C-alpha cells in the first residue's frame, strides 16, 4: 500500500448506522519503526463496554488516538457512529486556570452551547458525578478521584455516543479506583454510553467490560476475545471475576513470554 493510499484512508468516518465503533485492518507505524498496530479489526456494539487489554507496547493508547482522530493510521479505516467520540486520559488533564465547573463549561462552550444552557447542563453533569458542591473549587483543591470525576463530567459534556478511556484510573489508589469503577458502571448505564476502555489491569478489564479483547505487543494484534458473562453489578474481589482473570492473565503471560529470548 502506498503512502498516498494510507493518507486517503486516514480520516475517521462518521457513520449513521452500524456498530458504535468499527475498526478495520488498522495498521500504524511511526516513521521507519516497526508497526505499533498491525491489522487490527474490531467492532464495538452500541451500548457495549469493551475493554482492550495488553502489556506495554501493544499500542493501546495509539489505538484510542486513532479512534479519537488525534492521529492518522498508516492504513485501515475507523468508523464512529453519530459523531466525534469523547476521550479521557490517565491524567485528568483539567485546566488549572479554571474551576471545576468552568472546565465542564468550556467543553460545552466549544460545542457552541449557549450561556444559560451551559450553566444548567454543567450543574446536571456535576450532580451526575456527585460533585455539585465542588463546582467552584479549583483543580488543585480536588483529590485525584474528584479530578477524574470532573474529567468524566467534561467528557460527558461533549454529548457523544462513544466514550474512549485511556487507563483513566491507573494513577489512582486502589480504594478510589474501586469506587470509580462503581461510578463508571452506574453512569454508563444511566447515560447509555458505549465505552472503549484501555487498560493493562486484567481484573479491571473483567470487572468493567462486557467483552475483553487481548492485544499482543510489538506489533499490537488482536490475540483473543473473551465474553464476560458475569452479571453487573460485579465486584473486583468476586470469585467469578477472579476466575476469568486467571485464565486471561495466563494468555497474557504467554504473549509476553514470546518477547523474551527469541527476538
Amino acid at each position, binding site marked *: 500500500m502506498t503512502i498516498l493510499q494510507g493518507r486517503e484512508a486516514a480520516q475517521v468516518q462518521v457513520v449513521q448506522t452500524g456498530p458504535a465503533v468499527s475498526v478495520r485492518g488498522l495498521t500504524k507505524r511511526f516513521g521507519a519503526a516497526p508497526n505499533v498496530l498491525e491489522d487490527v479489526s474490531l467492532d464495538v456494539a452500541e451500548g457495549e463496554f469493551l475493554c482492550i487489554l495488553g502489556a506495554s507496547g501493544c499500542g493501546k493508547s495509539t489505538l484510542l488516538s486513532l479512534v479519537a482522530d*488525534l492521529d492518522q493510521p498508516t492504513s485501515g479505516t475507523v468508523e464512529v457512529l453519530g459523531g466525534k467520540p469523547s476521550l479521557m*486520559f490517565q491524567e485528568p*488533564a483539567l*485546566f488549572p486556570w479554571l474551576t471545576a465547573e468552568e472546565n465542564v463549561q468550556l467543553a460545552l*462552550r466549544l460545542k457552541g452551547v449557549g450561556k444559560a444552557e451551559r450553566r444548567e447542563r454543567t450543574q446536571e453533569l456535576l450532580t451526575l458525578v456527585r460533585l455539585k458542591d465542588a463546582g467552584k473549587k*479549583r483543580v488543585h483543591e480536588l483529590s485525584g478521584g474528584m479530578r477524574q470525576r470532573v474529567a468524566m463530567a467534561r467528557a460527558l459534556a461533549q454529548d457523544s455516543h462513544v466514550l474512549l478511556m485511556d487507563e483513566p484510573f491507573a494513577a489512582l489508589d486502589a480504594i478510589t479506583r474501586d*469506587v470509580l469503577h462503581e*461510578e463508571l458502571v452506574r453512569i454508563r448505564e444511566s447515560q447509555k454510553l458505549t465505552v472503549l476502555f484501555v487498560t493493562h489491569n486484567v481484573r479491571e478489564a473483567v470487572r468493567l467490560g462486557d467483552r475483553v479483547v487481548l492485544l499482543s505487543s510489538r506489533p499490537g494484534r488482536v490475540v483473543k476475545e473473551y465474553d464476560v458473562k458475569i452479571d453487573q*453489578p460485579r*465486584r473486583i474481589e468476586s470469585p467469578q471475576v477472579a476466575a476469568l482473570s486467571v485464565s486471561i492473565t495466563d494468555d497474557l503471560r504467554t504473549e509476553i513470554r514470546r518477547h523474551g529470548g527469541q527476538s
Partner: protein
Amino acid sequence: MTLQTDDLASLEAGLDALETSVVTGPSRGRRLWAATWPPLVFVALLVGVWQLVYEAHVVAAYRLPSPADTLGALRDQWDSGDLREAVWNSVSRGALGFAASLVIGTVLGLVVGRVKPVRRAVGPILSGLQSLPSVAWVPAAILWFGTNSATIYFVVLLGAVPSIANGMISGLDQVPPLFLRVGRVLGARGLASARHVLLPAALPGYVGGMRQGWAFSWRSLMAAELVARTPELGLGVGQLLDLSRQNADIAGVIAGVFTILVIGIAIELCLFAPLERTVLRRRGLLAATL
C-alpha cells in the same frame, strides 16, 4: 453483593472528605506582618550602621551625608516641587514605555514562540539581547534621534521588549502537550485553541517575563535620563540625580538613589508581585502560606 446507590454516594462523600483536608494557614494580616517586619528591621539596622559610620568620621562629611541630611535633601526637593515633577515625569515615561514594550514584546513572543522558522532565526538573538544592557544604545540613540523623548523610549523598549518576548516564549514552551490534545478532543482549533488553551496555559511564564520587563524598563529609563539631559526633556528622577551631582550635593545624590529604589520596589510590590502570586496561587503552584 454490591453497594447500593445511596451507599456509594455516602462512601464517595467520605472518600472526598478524607482526601481533601482543608489546611487553613495564618490570617492575611498575620501573614502580611510576618512578611513585613524582617525587612523593616534590617533596614533600621542598616540606617543605624550608617549613622554610626557617619558619627565616627571615618569618611569626610562631604562624601557621606548623615541619614538626617539625606532626609533633609529629600524634603528640600519635595518642597521645591522638583521631586514631584521628576517622579511624575519618570513614572509616566516608565509606564508608557512599559505599555509599548508589552504590546511589542507580546506580539513578538507569540510569533517567535509559535512560528518555527522565525524561532530558529530570531530566538537566539532575542535571548542574546537580554544580556545586552540597553544603556549601550544611549549614544547611538542620541545620534539618531537627538536628546529627546524618542531616545528615552527607544532605550526603554530595547530594555524591556526582549524580557517580555522571552517570557512569552518560555510560557508557550511550558504548555503541557496534553493540554493541547485535550483541547483538540474538546473541539478547540485555531483561534479557539489559542484563546481557551494555549494563552491561559502560557500565562505564568508570561507574567514572569512582564515582571522582569518592568524591572528592565525602569533601569533603562534611569540610565537614559542620567545621560540625556536637556530642558525640552523636562525633569525626571534620573535628571534630578545628575543635577545633584553637578551641584556636588552628596545628600541630594543619595536621596535620588533612594527615590529610584523606592519607586522600583513600590511598583514591584504593589503591582507585579501580587499579579504573579494570584496567577500562581489559583493554579496551586504556590504554597498558601506565602
